[in-house]
């Protein structure tokens, strides 16, 4: 009640309206931009989203860890190795499981078809060829992937992260020893 009251007060304040209305941008975006956003809606599912997140993580997180001067060199090395290992393991399994689950739901959610082909089709859906239906399939696929990941996080992600961390740390130490010889 109190939170919604504050939200309403902020939303109804003249200052907010003035700021919002004074921001330029009332012209329409070009046809190319329109097409790009429509393509994004079609192409990017939570699986691709996970892939983008992983790729950008590899470009930023290890460098942030490597510049963390608050810890000693040894800890920093393990931290960077673990971050890279975690990103590789998490992105690979996260992407593959999401992709697989979404594909499975898409195959088995045909509206109006009998048996297993309509296993995931919601009774209230009349047609399958709509944006809302595609987003529903992505949602259900992702929900199934999340349940699967409750197990794969322990069975695949965690041991793979451990294996890769040790591999990277050993390689780094081996490389350093060779150069110091």
């Amino acid at each position: 009640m109190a939170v919604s009251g504050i939200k309403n007060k902020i939303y109804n304040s003249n200052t907010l309206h003035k700021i919002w209305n004074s921001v330029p941008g009332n012209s329409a975006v070009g046809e190319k931009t329109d097409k790009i956003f429509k393509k994004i809606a079609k192409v990017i599912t939570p699986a691709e989203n996970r892939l983008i997140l992983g790729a950008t993580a590899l470009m930023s997180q290890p460098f942030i860890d490597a510049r963390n001067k608050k810890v000693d060199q040894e800890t920093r090395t393990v931290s960077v190795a673990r971050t890279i290992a975690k990103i590789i393991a998490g992105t690979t399994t996260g992407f593959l499981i999401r992709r697989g689950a979404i594909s499975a739901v898409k195959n088995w959610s045909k509206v109006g078809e009998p048996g297993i082909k309509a296993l995931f089709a919601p009774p209230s859906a009349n047609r399958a060829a709509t944006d809302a239906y595609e987003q529903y399939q992505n949602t259900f696929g992702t929900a199934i992937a999340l349940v699967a990941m409750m197990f794969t996080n322990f069975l695949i992600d965690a041991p793979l992260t451990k294996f890769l961390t040790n591999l990277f740390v050993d390689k780094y130490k081996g490389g350093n020893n060779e150069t110091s010889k």
Partner: protein
Amino acid sequence: MKPPNNAWNGLKDWLYKNYGEHPGKMFLHTGTVAWIFSALGQLTAIVFNDKISSDQKAFLIPQELSDAAINILSFYIVTSSVTKLASKLVSTGKVTTKPIREYLEKCGLKDKIGKLDFNIPNALGDKFSEIKKDHYKPFKNGVDIAASTAGSVLSCNIITPLIRNSYAADRQQYVLAQKRRQNQQNMYAPGSLDDYQKLAAM
């Protein structure tokens, strides 16, 4: 293989109605749950990794805990804020496409486009269906998904690592200082009368 009961159909309908029209919300909610599960798995990986020394674990466990807490919170707060803002930009017409704008102008709504209290679906009422399927929804879904992806990249890959490293380093210093204090106390505190006599005889 037949769906077992009404609960199954109810679940499918609920997901269809709640998330089919709102992919941005779906990205946000599934992303948050995924980070919670992922954090649990990663924490287990550190605890049971024998090759990581206890001193390094003193850094990595709090790093992982802070990573999880900050990741989940910043993911939810940043991503939902960015997605809501993007959604508002489209629903008010602040950011729109040529066909949508032309249709709004045709309906005599030119002066209201882009105003904070303007909402395209509400303002058009029954006429909304004319632009919904081909223009408004595909564009808005794209903007929502792009915004939630940008929000998640910003929160998970920049904000979280910066905050969590700072917190985990402070935590490591604290844990190591405590260990040192404990070792010193053990060194000077004999456990039995025998120990005390041996120390006194030195």
